[in-house]
């Protein structure tokens, strides 16, 4: 269960900044997968960072009662100058899994299927390869909730299928909170939805209702 209580967040840039999130308040029950919807810049990534504990809200709290992954996304979590293998080793070590490194590397390689590129620096990867590695890395660890920030957006059809299957295998044990614009993915993986608009969040028990509401906010029926 994840409780988000009266969350406020703003960023102070050199040119000032308005509120990104204002009084966001919801509770995600155990084993319910949630899609976060909203137009570009609505605060989806910010919300995920706050849930993942990488950033602190200006006001309000996020309470976890479970193990939450880091947000898998296009940019985050992979150091560009390190190879895929070095990144996997690093993540294994900070989680105290030094003795399981060979096993973890095998798992990530099986999932990511990026072949020789696994030993090339991440900065040479395409965005699809990055997201494959990112997903494989998160799935090598057992979390109760996985956070995904558009991580599936750039994958090919085979990878998307694989990601969906990985979640299907974990139904009942793990859930996902995903920010995405892909309606197909959201319908397949999520039960509920959150629509972000003008800094406020609206909770929908059914992802289809959330998608309808989201379409209205972007002026598309």
């Amino acid at each position, binding site marked *: 269960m994840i409780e988000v209580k009266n969350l406020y967040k703003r*960023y102070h840039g050199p040119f000032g900044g308005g509120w990104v999130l204002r009084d966001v308040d919801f509770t995600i029950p155990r084993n319910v997968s949630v899609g976060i919807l909203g137009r570009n810049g609505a605060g989806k990534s910010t919300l995920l960072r706050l849930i*993942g*504990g*990488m*950033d*602190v809200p200006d006001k309000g709290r996020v309470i976890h009662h479970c*193990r939450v992954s*880091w*947000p898998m996304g296009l*940019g*985050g*979590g*992979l*150091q*560009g*100058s*390190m190879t895929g293998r*070095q990144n996997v*080793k*690093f*993540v294994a*070590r*900070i*989680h*105290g*899994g*030094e003795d*399981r490194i060979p*096993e*973890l590397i095998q*798992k990530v390689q099986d999932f990511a299927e990026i072949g020789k590129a696994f030993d090339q620096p991440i900065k040479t990867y395409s965005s699809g390869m990055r997201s494959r590695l990112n997903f494989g890395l998160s799935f*090598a*660890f*057992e*979390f109760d909730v996985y956070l995904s920030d558009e991580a599936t957006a750039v994958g090919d059809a085979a990878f998307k299928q694989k990601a969906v299957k990985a979640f299907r295998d974990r139904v009942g044990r793990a859930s996902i909170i995903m920010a995405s614009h892909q309606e197909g993915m959201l319908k397949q993986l999520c039960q509920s939805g959150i629509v972000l608009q003008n800094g406020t969040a609206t909770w929908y028990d059914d992802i289809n209702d959330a998608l309808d509401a989201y379409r209205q906010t972007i002026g598309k029926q």
Partner: protein
Amino acid sequence: MAQAAVRNPWQVTLHVWYALFLRELTARVTADRVAWLWLLLEPIAHVLIMAGLRTLIGRIRLIPGADFIPWLIVGITTFFLFRNLMTRGMSAIDANRALFAYRQVRPADTVLVRCALEGMLSTTVILIMVVLLNLLNYEILPHDPLSVMGYWMLMWAFGIGIALIFSVVVTVFPESKKFISMLTMPLYLLSGVMIPIQYFPTEVRYYLMFNPLVHILEFVRAGFFEAYRTVDGISLLYATWWSLGALALGLLMHVRYKFRLMAQ
């Protein structure tokens, strides 16, 4: 499956330090094809070039109680320990930004680990220099190795403190990096590394003695050369206060600005 048992915060921190240390070391050694060689050759070459230049053009060669070349080399390597900690330590946060995605990794960890690694490299360099010069028949073997080690550690601690402070400053105000880098040159000249403090006029010396680097450098030299006559007014207490103060302020700044430093 692959979830570790619940670890206490110290264990988590140790695991993070271990992982970061290996990551920093691999990055330093495999940066390019000659990186592993350059790691030790660069500081040694730098020291030798400076020593060569100084013997060619310098007028002051008379150091009370020590040979000039060993005196110079001990000073330069000790100063480089500080300089490397400061300049490399303060860029540690930027270099590891992507890794803050994992909430175990905190900005202070990256600075501390990088400083530990830099300190080890500098220690290796001074050991090599001492052996090298000893083989060339210079009087450089420390007469009081234990106190040399102690003061070397003091310089290490001071460097870590300054690196912690500046790493926050350059991340919060990126413009300040230019000015801080500019600072190292005058410090080099005014810390008694190449020009002995005794040769400055008394009025100037009064102000130079505020620089804690002068104090630590003199103590390190005193540990090396038995008959060495240090500058008047050096104080271990003063240098220690600076080191502890810098460490405390640096850690406090990291606590205060933790999330500002982690922001993408």
